[in-house]
Structures are given as C-alpha cells and as structure tokens.
C-alpha cells in the first residue's frame, strides 16, 4: 500500500517535470501578460508616469480607455479595420467558394490548379505587399512620360483612365481598394483549402440523387452544396473576421510602417494603433486598446457563432 502511494506521488511529480518548461514559459509570457495588461489598462496614465521617471502611485480608473477612444486617433483605426473586414471577408469567402466548387468539378489538372491557388499562402506578407506596391505604383513622373504601373496599363486595355492608387495625393478609397485586392488575394488560399476539403468530404450520393432528379446546376449549388458546406463556410467566415480585425502587416507591406504614401495614420488599423502606442511608451493606452480589440473580436465571434448555429442546423 505504501509502495502504491509512493508510486502515485512519483507520477504526479513526474508529470510536472514534463510540463515544467512549458508552464514556466507560459507563466511568464502568457499568464502574466493577461494580468499585467488589465493592470496597465486600468492604471491611469501608466506609460506617462514611467516615462517621467516619477513615483508610481496606483490610481485605478478608465482614463486610458477614455483617452484612447476620445483623442487617440483610435476611432479612425477602428473604422479602417471594420471597413477592410466588412469588404474583404464576404468577397474572399464568395470567391473562394466559387473557385473551390469549380475546382471540385474538374478532373485533369485539379491538383495542379489547387497548388497554384495555394501559393499566396506560403508568402511573406511584407514582401508580397511590396510587389503589390510596385504593381500599383506610378513611377517616373520626372521623365517625358510617366509610367502608370502595370495595373493601370492593364486597366487601360479595358478603356480605364489611369488612377492614382497609392502615390502621394491618392484618395482614401483608392488606397482601400488596393488593400482590399491584396487582402483578398492573401486570404483566398486558406479559404479555398478549407472549402475544397469540405466539398471533397460531402457524400457524392447527394449529387447523384440530385442528378437523378434532374436538378439544374445552379439549384444544386444553392440548395445542396452551400447548405451541406455551411459548417465550413461558417468556419472560414469566423476565422476571416478574427483575422480581419487583426489586419496589420498587409498595410505595412504596401504603405510602409509609417503609412508614408498617404501621410499620417489615416490608414492605420487597430493592431497598428496598439504598436504605435507601445512604441511611444504609452503601455497603458496600448493595453486599453488591446482590451477593446479583444472585446470586439470576442463579441463578433460570438455573434458569428450564434448566427452560424442557427443557419447550419443539421
């Protein structure tokens, strides 16, 4: 009996040895930050005090939140983030769905095309952002005739006048359009992968049954494919929203760290705002903004899950 108890004790002890590295690292870099972020966010003027080297007196309050929401340019960032999310999630989801359905309907070259469509996933978003910048960029104002960039040239073939997409003096909506194209391009591979995987796991008999019943193609798509795929669609929409609210590096890729092409921070996103505050040693404000971001993501995810639960009940 004594032996047995010793054995149990030893097992307990052993498990914690295995877990030790993970637990120590998680305590320092995950658990502590959760508490500390709360502490900093509700500690009025946290960053400022530290910067001045003054004695820290704890004053609990929501001053940081007030400052972030009131004066910090945060609302602009929030608006940009929302706009990009609302634009890119539906566009990329629908496009990915159509591509996945088409891919699923062909036989020769299916694997090859599938690989091509996955390519944007294995890229560095800063690096390819720079490529998009180059494609939309207008170069050579100084020379006899400006080069409007490849995109403007391609659009010219279809009779469109050149647009100042991202250069100095470009409009907000032109910038947003470029960002939307890039983010959608970047978001497609993951969505196609998930949706195609879903399509391939749908029982083929449903399609056979539909064929026997002479169902037109479009009706098969809307009445059978989409409903059967709805759990996957819900999944890519939810992850799409979460990713959309955390958008940052694609903007840095095209416009640079300081969003210099358009000046100021009129294109910044919420994550960008957090880093900006952090860079300026305003940890309190950064924490407050991060908590707001978390709250928004949490609420949006809950809404998404609620809606998808109502729509995907089978």
């Amino acid at each position, binding site marked *: 009996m004594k032996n047995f108890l010793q054995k149990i004790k030893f*097992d*307990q002890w052993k*498990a914690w040895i*295995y*877990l030790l*590295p*993970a637990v120590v*690292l998680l305590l320092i*870099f*995950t*658990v*502590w930050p*959760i508490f*500390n*972020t709360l502490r900093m966010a509700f500690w009025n003027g946290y960053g400022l005090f530290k910067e001045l080297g003054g004695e820290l007196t704890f004053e609990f309050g929501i001053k940081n939140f007030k400052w972030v929401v009131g004066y910090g340019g945060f609302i602009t960032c929030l608006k940009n983030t929302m706009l990009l999310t609302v634009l890119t999630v539906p566009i990329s989801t629908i496009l990915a769905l159509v*591509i996945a359905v*088409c891919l699923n309907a*062909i036989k020769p070259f299916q694997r090859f095309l599938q*690989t*091509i469509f*996955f*390519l944007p*996933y*294995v*890229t*560095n978003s*800063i*690096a*390819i952002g*720079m*490529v*998009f910048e*180059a*494609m939309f960029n207008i*170069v*050579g104002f100084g020379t006899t005739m400006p*080069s*409007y*960039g*490849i995109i403007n040239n391609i659009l010219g073939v279809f009779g469109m006048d050149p647009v100042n997409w991202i250069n100095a003096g470009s409009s907000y909506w032109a910038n947003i359009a470029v960002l939307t194209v890039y983010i959608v*391009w970047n978001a*497609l591979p*993951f969505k196609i*992968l*998930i949706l195609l995987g879903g399509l391939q796991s749908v029982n083929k008999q449903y399609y056979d049954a539909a064929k026997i019943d002479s169902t037109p193609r479009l009706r098969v798509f809307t009445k059978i494919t989409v409903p059967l795929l709805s759990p996957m669609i819900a*999944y890519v929409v939810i992850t799409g929203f979460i*990713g959309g*609210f*955390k958008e940052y590096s694609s903007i*840095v*890729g095209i416009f*640079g*760290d300081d969003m210099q092409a358009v000046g100021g921070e009129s294109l910044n996103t919420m*994550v960008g705002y957090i*880093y900006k505050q*952090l*860079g300026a040693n305003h940890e309190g404000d*950064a924490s407050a903004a*991060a908590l707001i*971001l978390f709250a928004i993501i949490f609420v949006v995810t809950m809404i998404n899950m609620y809606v998808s639960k109502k729509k995907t009940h089978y």
Partner: protein
Amino acid sequence: MADKLMSTMHEKDMQKVTAMQKVTKILVQFLLYAFLIVMALIIVFPFYWMIISSLKNTAEYRLPVPTLFPQEIMWGNYLEAFTAANLGKLFMNTVYVGIVSTILSLVVTVLSAFAFARLEFKGKNALFAALLATMMIPGELFTITNYVTVTKFGWLDSYTVLIVPFLVSVFYIYLLRQNFLQIPNELYLAAKVDGTTDLKYLWKVMIPLSLPNLISITILKMMGAWNSYVWPRLVTSTDDYRLITNGLRDAFTDMSGQANIPVQMAAVTVVSIPLFLVFIFLRKYIMKGVSRSGIKG
C-alpha cells in the same frame, strides 16, 4: 396514380436532348477551365511581376508601357539587393533563430503533450482547459507586456529575445496531444510491463507514430520565423539581430524619392524563393497543418 406518369420522350426529342447534353457538358467544362485559368493567372501574376521586375534595369522598368519580359537581364540587381539590405546577415539570423526556436519548441511541445495525453496528475483537465482558453486572446495583448518584460530582463537586441518568448504554442500542444491520444493506451501499458521508461517509449513509439504532425509543426514554425515582422522590429535595432523581413521593408523605405524598384524586387524574390522551395517539397504537410490550424505562419 398511373395516369400521372412522367411524359415519355419521342425519338426526335431524344436525339436533340442527347446532342444538347453533349454541347452543355463541353460548354460547362470549357467555362470551368476558363474561369479557373483566369483566376490562377491573377493569383500568380504578382509572382511573375516580382521576378521579371527584379531582372530589369531602372530605365526599362520606367517605360510608359511596361514590358512583359526584360529586354536585358540584370543579374546585378541581386548583388545590389544583398548589399543594400544586408540580406546575407539577416538571412543567417533568420535561419539561426528559425532552427533553434523550432527545435526547442518541439521539445517543449512533445513533453507537455505527452504529460497531458498519458500521465495522470491532479488538475490535469483544469490546466488543459485553462491553456485552451488562452488561445482565444489575440497575440497583441501579450506582446505589450512581453515587450516590457524582455526590456526588464535586458534581453533587447539578442537572439534570446527572438527565440524564447513565443516558444510555447498552446495550439501545437493541443494538436500533438490529440495525436498522442489516438495511439492506443495498451501500447503504453505493454511498454510499462516490459519495463520501458517513459522517455524511451516516447522516443520509440509516440514520436514515430506522430511524425506527420511533428513535420507540419516544424514547417509552420520555420515559416513563422521567416515571416515574423512585428516582434523582431520591436525588440531589435541593429542588423546583428534583425530578421529578414525587417531588413526588407526598412532598407528600401529609407530611400527618398524614386526607389530602385528592380533592386527592391530582387530582394523580395530572394526572400520568397526559400518559401516556394519548402512549399514545393513539403506541400502535403503544409496543407494538412494549415487546414487544421487556420493560422498563418
């Protein structure tokens, strides 16, 4: 009820329907391929543009009507990119950080996943649930405090600061634990009866059986190091420790006025090619890992 039977077709209709059927089938296939090929071209165009732009000279690049293939191939752009962005050093930094953090991360992940999957201890389920809960919190929330912490530790500008803070991924532990759980417990008990130690069992049975997942984790972790931008930018300030993505953006945004875009594209190509190579050879593992994780890098 027999009077309502579906109408039958006549000989003539039938020939028409058969012909129509063939035409529709061909037309649909044609449209499918046409759509997919156009979309595929749009997808690959940026890569194409990246490569051909990297081989043009500045004058050709600035032609009002861009050429679709360089008239004169400028390999020199690549040499210039390496010196301008200090790519060589940054490349080595990234490889070093990637390899070390992957190895350490695998060790930590395997040990914890084993503890959660096979060992019994008090509070196991509560601890695991708490870990899963942290997955919901956006990473930016951790970054703020971690920045403060590593500053206090005096880790700024070091390899340590790039490797240690994000070594543990709850998601990888979760993924591997699920994999370990699928391995029948009888194997473990049999090994215990034979007097095999836990570590030996882990090494001889569990790891070989979950190799595909470990490979997926390795690739995703390496890609993460290769693509990380925000954290290294925050905690490093010299080229001794910066990673490749930082050098990329910063080296060329410093230039004022008309940037030398072909050289810039050469640098971008250099950064992108290792990723493509990894993708071509390990596509299966990447796609499997990604479809499970839903995270980038």
